[in-house]
């Protein structure tokens, strides 16, 4: 594994992307309306890589919003055919560390169990991630409080960063050295600028401290203004809940997975009609604890990557990380009360 950086001159970016696109399906950031999203690269188009958060997470590239898993003929019996997973090589370029951390978390959810999700696995196997170091932290960014940093490279196959006269690339896995074999890239002694990143914007209590607050009044108060829409869950790079539905149209039927959200009233409704999470408070608690406690217990890492997408998307400008800060205050309050008594 090479540790050296290679320089791509700014003017050569288009030619380099064209060369990548010649060998694989290439996905890059694209501005759509007021936000950045990922889109398939078209030869010869100008491409810009945002230096910080891309508002729409790359989650949907690995775990689509609507994903057919089997096809059937609704009029015939026993006609279910599983969907063949995609296998063409693919490159996703420009994902930032918080987004890549989301994929690492999804790996634990979908793959590290007795029944790996074979469609997700196929998407992972066919994809090379060319990640990008961030050159700035937006006001809503707080990855440094979630065991990450704008320089984190774990989960990436290749990393690149902004430099004065172009982009600096470095391969992180053996198999992807070849991507950087292009003559457009020249070995260099230059290194991306090292920066001190702000910390402590949105600290949260530890998983066990949080579980102690399970029956606290906090949740009721905090849920006062929550709309319980699913905007935050759909924007989140680690929210992976889905439902399964059979969709029929004439002779064609598809069994699909579709994103679901624990914030929906229908999510936890049981067949009997009973719903253990009827109140907004119960649903808010579920999501908060899932991000900061259950995820530790189940998958060994927090499912909050500190990207702040939930803050950017919330129709009432509520923010989950801020809830964390308030929870921390509540934990301290409890501790000091315990000391007094």
């Amino acid at each position, binding site marked *: 594994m090479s540790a050296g950086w290679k320089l791509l001159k700014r003017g050569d970016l288009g030619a380099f992307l064209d060369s990548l696109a010649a060998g694989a399906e290439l996905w890059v950031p694209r501005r759509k*309306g007021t936000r950045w999203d990922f889109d398939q690269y078209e030869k010869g188009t100008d491409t810009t890589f945002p230096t910080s958060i891309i508002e729409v997470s790359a989650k949907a590239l690995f775990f689509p919003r609507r994903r057919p898993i089997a096809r059937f003929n609704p009029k015939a019996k026993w006609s279910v055919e599983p969907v063949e997973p995609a296998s063409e090589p693919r490159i996703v370029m420009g994902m930032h560390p918080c987004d890549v951390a989301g994929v690492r978390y999804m790996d634990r959810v979908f793959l590290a169990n007795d029944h790996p999700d074979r469609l997700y696995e196929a998407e992972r196997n066919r994809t090379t991630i060319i990640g990008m170091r961030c050159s700035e932290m937006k*006001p809503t960014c707080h990855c440094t409080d979630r065991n990450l940093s704008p320089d984190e490279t774990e989960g990436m196959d290749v990393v690149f960063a902004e430099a004065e006269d172009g982009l600096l690339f470095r391969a992180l896995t053996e198999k992807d050295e070849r991507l950087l074999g292009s003559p457009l890239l020249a070995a260099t002694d230059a290194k991306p600028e090292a920066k001190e990143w702000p910390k402590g914007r949105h600290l949260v209590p530890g998983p066990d401290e949080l579980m102690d607050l399970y029956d606290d009044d906090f949740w009721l108060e905090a849920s*006062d*203004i929550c*709309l319980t829409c*699913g905007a935050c869950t*759909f924007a989140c790079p680690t929210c992976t809940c889905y439902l399964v*539905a059979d969709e029929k149209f004439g002779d064609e039927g598809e069994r699909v997975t579709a994103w679901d959200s624990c914030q929906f009233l229908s999510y936890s409704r049981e067949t009997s009609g009973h719903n253990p999470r009827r109140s907004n408070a119960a649903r808010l608690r579920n999501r908060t604890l899932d991000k900061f406690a259950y995820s530790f217990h189940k998958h060994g890492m927090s499912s909050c990557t500190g990207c702040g997408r939930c803050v950017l998307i919330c*129709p009432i*400008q509520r923010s989950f990380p801020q809830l964390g800060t308030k929870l921390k205050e509540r934990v301290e309050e409890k501790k000091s009360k315990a000391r007094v008594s």
Partner: protein
Amino acid sequence: MTELQQKARELLDKGEIDALLAWKVDPGIGDVRPTLFKKDDDAAEIVFDERCVHNLANYLPTLTARYNRVGVVLKGCDGRSLTTLLIEHRISKNSIVALAPACEGVNVNGARAQKCDDCPTATSPVADYEFGARLARGDAEFKQLERIEKMSPEERWQFFAEQFAKCRRCYACRQVCPLCYCELCIADQPEPRWIEPSRKLSANAMWHLVRAYHLAGRCSDCGECTRACPEGIPIRLLNIAVEKLVREQFGVRPGTKPDELPPLVTLAKDDSDEVMAEHL
């Protein structure tokens, strides 16, 4: 302190209300956010300006179930939603105290909200306390519809199909809407499955059209559906197209008169037959 802040403090101090729903600046995000003020909170922090876009009437059914009496600060559009909520018996007037400052319009993404062009009431029609002079408002011209009305049916479908295709089905439009309050939403009903849950054009279009129909003659045009949409779908265009028709047929702007039943739940002898006649 403004008159509004003073009245809010007085009501909270005297215990006439148990909580007050208003706006406050959150330093963490540098923006205003709906906030529930209690007796110990500082009413001087209440903000009322062009940043106060959220429709607070939406929270009243839940909050009035928890508190005896809830105060609420309402813009003109929020007040129209409240009127309809009262008419439809979602809340009782006794459980709320309405504080109604004159609204000069709000901003969405740094520009004046489009809904403000069509606003029929700058001050809430339901008001226990009013602040500032009632601003006169002309009748809506629904100018934003012109672009759609000029299109051929094919172009129109093309336009809306493109918009609907973007929908993620996060239901922010439903949750943010004070009048979308069904206990079991048609979109959530598992059997029969009227609207398929996954993100595809046919199901997305079905969702948006059904929602528009369910709001016919009720929508107060608070514009929250459009503002809340993470995909920027101009949902409101559907609603005002329906409201324009309702106004033409029944002469009603929903929520503007506290004693007027929504036209589609009543039958009056002088109702126009025009709509029905077209289809007979």
